[in-house]
């Protein structure tokens, strides 16, 4: 059975980056978006909201994405997290994969890349 995504938590320190990513989600699916500006806010909001999907930047102040990823996965091992990052070094990608990222979406996002990612998440259930 396909997974249904309703609520999405976007964690990124750049407001414009959050806006860009949000605009790439299909408009007709009624997603409920929540936003956080750093890893700590993202973790706190995750615990409060338990969204269906988290998108996580890596380079952020206060708490970086790698730490947030680990903390969220420790809180909820079933959390579905897409890492949306400009850091496309192989070692970074390997590290986040090992820490439980569902997949990596290189920046800048596009409607096509976001749709592909969403389809993979939905089909993963």
């Amino acid at each position: 059975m396909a997974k249904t995504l309703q609520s999405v938590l976007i964690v990124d320190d750049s407001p414009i980056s959050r806006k860009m990513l949000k605009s790439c989600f299909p408009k007709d699916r009624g997603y409920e978006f929540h936003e956080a500006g750093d890893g700590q806010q993202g973790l706190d909001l995750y615990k409060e909201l338990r969204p269906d999907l988290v998108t996580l930047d890596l380079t952020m102040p206060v708490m970086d994405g790698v730490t947030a990823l680990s903390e969220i996965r420790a809180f909820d091992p079933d959390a579905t997290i897409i890492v949306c990052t400009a850091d496309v070094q192989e070692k970074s990608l390997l590290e986040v994969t090992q820490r439980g990222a569902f997949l990596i979406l290189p920046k800048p996002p596009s409607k096509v890349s976001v749709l592909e990612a969403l389809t993979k998440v939905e089909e993963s259930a």
Partner: protein
Amino acid sequence: MSEARMSATTLTEAEIGRANLSEATMSEAGISQPGMGEASSGQPSAASGDVAGMGVAGSEEAGRGEAGVMTDEERDTLQEMMNIAFGRAAASLAEVISIFVCLSVPCVQLLRGEKLTAYLEQVVGPGREISIVEESFWGELQGSAFLVFPSGAGDQLVPLFGDEETLYEGEAREDVERDALLTTGSILIGACVGKLAELLGDRVSYSPAKLVAKRPGEAIPALLCDPEAIAIVLKTDFAFREESVEGFLFLITSEQSIDWLKQALADFLAQYEG
């Protein structure tokens, strides 16, 4: 927020922003730059903006921008583009030499040309010897890129390029270290500026990389120091995890690029509208 149904528990834009002022905004306000990342992921950890132990950045004088030239959204977009561009540059370098580049949040500042040298001196710190690799670039976007390393970084970089004994054999030590700096600088600058230009819909040519100065006061070309000109300074700090080498890259684009840049930013953002 138009498409989002924000719940009552979701942070408002203001709340997100409060905890997370962009460096550009903070610099405009004369506030020291925030930390460059978290130690847990191996990122640079200088919480006060002390770059590479090279001095305190973001002083009131160095941090003041030229209000009104670019909107907050334009600077935010440029900052995000720099983030993407340097991420690609780091990956390019990692493909050539076995290294992991720890990235930080970039910052964008607008400065009068006459303040550039003072800015660099303050970022680096008084009296410090450094190595600066410079490349000029030309396209619609034009200016100069400077990769700043602490003095002695060349010595630390050489082993990343291969067996030291072989590399130094028959060569003057200084030449080998200079080559290591130039190669590293050329890859990082070329990939970063190239990606930035690509995101902006531009294509640029480069001058060959060169080592320009050992002191920040001598680094900025006179052409860019025009008191009437406004320069856009894009700066990102980095650290090489394996060799504990830290430094920063900054790009200065000329005032002539600003009108074109504003349109290019609008075009870039247009693909995310609606």
